[in-house]
């Protein structure tokens, strides 16, 4: 087994394990914290895939912003009772079976994929010479300008929405 494969094995095992920890923790705070660890692992996996930019925003946005938001909410709601109660729904076995089904089906699909499109021209060498951030920036502002703009709109809506929803009603 080569070194990259060993690295990958480590990440695969730990990501799977961390995921399981995330979804099974009783205390949401613990779940969020395990999630944080998980995100760091994923960011490293991105580095492995020559996606430095993604690794960066994974840490900055996901770990830094979204998870903190989650933590805030958990703290705000101050759910003490949660720890003493059931953590799963009554129907959890069905969920388990469904999830297992998903896993089997998806793996089955993926195994079947044999034909791939022609590789594009963004080879590793090119990426390394031009720089990952540069390429993404160029593509994002040219070819994918419209989706990019829409994304900004979505974010705007989300901001306004969040403000409106959480605002206290004026009597």
């Amino acid at each position, binding site marked *: 087994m*080569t070194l990259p494969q060993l690295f990958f094995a480590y990440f695969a095992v730990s990501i799977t394990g961390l995921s399981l920890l995330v979804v099974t923790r009783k205390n949401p705070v613990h*779940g969020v914290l395990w999630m944080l660890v998980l995100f760091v692992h994923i960011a490293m996996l991105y580095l492995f895939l020559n996606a430095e930019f993604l690794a960066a925003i994974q840490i900055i946005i996901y770990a830094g912003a979204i998870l903190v938001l989650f933590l805030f909410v958990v703290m705000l709601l101050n759910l003490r009772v949660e720890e003493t109660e059931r953590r799963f*729904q009554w129907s959890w076995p069905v969920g388990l079976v469904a999830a297992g089904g998903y896993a089997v089906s998806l793996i089955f699909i*993926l195994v079947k994929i044999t034909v791939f499109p022609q590789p594009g021209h963004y080879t590793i060498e090119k990426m390394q010479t031009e720089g990952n951030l540069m390429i993404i920036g160029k593509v994002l502002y040219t070819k994918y300008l419209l989706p990019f703009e829409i994304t900004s709109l979505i974010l705007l809506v*989300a901001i306004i929405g969040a403000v409106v929803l959480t605002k206290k009603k004026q009597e």
Partner: protein
Amino acid sequence: MVPLSWYIMLSAVVFSIGVLGFLMRRNLIMVFLSIELMLNSINISLAAFSHYLQSITGQIMVFLVITVAAAEAAIGLAILMAFYKNNPTIKADEINLLKG
């Protein structure tokens, strides 16, 4: 080299764990967290495709997914807060407002 399929399988497994969490947990915050987990699993496969197919589109997609995830988390948690103000519960199986 690590074969592409390894990444994909990892992605599939993590996605399924996300689904598992989504379907099993009662706490709505954990449900949201499971959704994030699913999104991340997809991100892994997108990034892997991008790398192996030497195409930048995959990374762009990840970028977009992350922004959408951010928006989703913000709105979702805001709804949760607003809801909690009226009904002090966030148990997924106790909320039945959809019932006519």
